[in-house]
């Protein structure tokens, strides 16, 4: 599904280059559920934006479903986002003046799908997240968990192959968060590829794989089930048998241009 080869993303900060991502090489298979972890500023969101074609790498190759997208134009990326990628955000990003149904139908409107058709599809998407009875509610009439379920319905309504989620449970209580995760996992079982950024080890543990970033570099790859309870870095090291994963000390002292 996703093949990243030697991806670099560099920003110019006050005339000095800041490497947000460096030599990222990673494969993600279709239907896989991958969690991205790492401390703040480690490049998680930058990586997610790149995967979502909202941003382009300075260097490297990004193959999405067999198509090289790293150097496509803004217009071409727009089409890829529209047809292949669904987004779920921590703060939902629902349009306040639209009903749940209107929000779900929004991507289809910009895709030029007819009104009747898109309303039927939006209704179906809301049913799949068990929000059909809330279709005519506005976001401010919904709870956080309900809003995120509407957002998920919006993300899947164009039938994308890749779902990107940035802290989808970050603003939710434990119970709502669990419901949302159940929903997302259900989608991966139907063949959707899910990449999720999270701080929460409890959330990451449910992923097939957990990738940890520090200073823009991938520093560990573990199975979600192998992730420890409290601090993912420490526990991951303690739990791993191969010893190749860097220790906390290694991570914190890691220099950019070693």
């Amino acid at each position, binding site marked *: 599904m996703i093949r990243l080869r030697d991806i670099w993303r560099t920003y110019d900060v006050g005339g000095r280059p800041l490497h947000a991502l460096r030599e990222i090489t990673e494969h993600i298979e279709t239907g896989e559920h991958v969690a991205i972890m790492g401390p703040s500023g480690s490049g998680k969101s930058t990586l997610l934006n790149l995967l979502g074609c909202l941003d382009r790498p300075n260097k490297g190759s990004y193959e999405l479903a067999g198509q090289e997208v790293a150097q496509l134009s803004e217009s071409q990326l727009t089409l890829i986002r529209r047809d292949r990628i669904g987004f779920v955000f921590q703060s939902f990003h629902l349009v*306040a003046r639209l009903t749940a149904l209107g929000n779900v139908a929004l*991507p289809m409107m910009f895709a030029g799908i007819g009104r009747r058709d898109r309303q039927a599809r939006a209704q179906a998407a809301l049913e799949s997240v068990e929000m059909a009875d809330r279709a005519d509610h506005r976001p401010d009439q919904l709870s956080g968990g309900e809003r995120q379920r509407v957002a998920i319905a919006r993300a899947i309504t164009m039938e994308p192959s890749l779902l990107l989620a940035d802290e989808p449970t970050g603003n939710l209580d434990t119970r709502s968060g669990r419901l949302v995760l159940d929903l997302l996992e259900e989608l991966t079982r139907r063949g959707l590829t899910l990449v999720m950024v999270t701080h929460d080890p409890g959330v990451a543990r449910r992923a097939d794989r957990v990738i940890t970033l520090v200073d823009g570099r991938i520093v560990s790859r573990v199975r979600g089930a192998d992730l420890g309870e409290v601090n993912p870095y420490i526990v991951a090291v303690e739990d791993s048998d191969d010893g190749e994963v860097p220790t906390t000390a290694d991570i914190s002292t890691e220099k950019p241009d070693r």
Partner: protein
Amino acid sequence: MSALDTLRFAVRALRSHGLRTALSMTGVAIGVASVIILTSLGEGARSYVIDQFASLGTNVLIVIPGKTETTGGFPGIGGVPNDLTIADAQALARDIRTVTSVAPVSNGNETVSAGGRSKQVMILGTTAEMRDLRSIEMRTGRYLPEGDWQRGASVAVLGDGIARDLFPGTGAIGKVVRIGDFRMRVIGVMAARGVTMGMDFDQIVMVPLATGMRLFNRSSLFRIMLQHDPQADVERIQANVTRILTDRHDEEDFTLITQDSVMSAFSQIFAALTAALAGIAAISLIVAGIGIMNVMLVSVSERTREIGLLKAVGAHPRQILFAFLTEAVLLSTAGGLVGLGIAGVSLEALVAAVPGLDATPPAWAIVAALVVSIGVGVIFGVLPARTATRLDPIAGLRG
């Protein structure tokens, strides 16, 4: 994304902040309303003046002594203009076949008194021909007698108002009035007419031409009025009048005014005035446009998250541009329509309140105001819409 979808999307966005939408629409409405009201009043004033000139009597030419052109010479050296005389008027009446009537006019102000009452009024010395020329209606009695222009009888025709002032409650016909040092018999009273062309016909006394000239001790006419055959070639008559008078005076020391030339001059003045008023009002439309731009920029900066989301879900930059541009154009067009309504209602109220005022909005002003208000939306909507399309989606989606 269909046009209808774009429209619906824009309407929803505008409705979501109704007060702001209403206020910026008001700006355009005021601009459009003021353009239409001011041009309507300008047009009304123009047609009022044209009507006044038309009431002068149609197919009329006027000869005035003296040349209104400046020649650049020293005043006095070029010669004092010759008097315009009764003989000149007679020559014009005799020699130009297409001129149907000629009325020489002499005028001045004098005190008119009768039975202890007196009044300072305008005295017009003229001939029987004036009646047709100015379409004068009589209330009672008859108008000035026909006959030799050089010999004036001591008779007077009173304006309606003067007759009532001097002879309240009784008939004026046959009574004697004193005008200056002369005593004259009243032979007629004109029907009430009011003010036309700045001349109050109700407060005027008409006497035979020669009587008037004797009264004011003048040998020169105030002016000569000519009425011509409606089918006649006006330019040829003008040429003939000019030739005859130039022959008689040895120089062109008079001015010939045609009704057309006066009307077109005034018409031009009022058209320029109307355009100037419209221009001033149009400034308020520009201000309204800046208001729209401001509101749209606020809207864009408020909606960075929404715009980021639209980009993430695959809205093309062009679609986002159109969405915001549509909002701006909707704002300005709706404002324009409201302005039209305001203008229509206020003009109707104005016309009802001021009798005789004609203030119909000219069609061009209505069309122009609507086109301009749409244009204002497009012009002042482009910058905010472009700002929206250039927003970084990542920045918009953060947080």
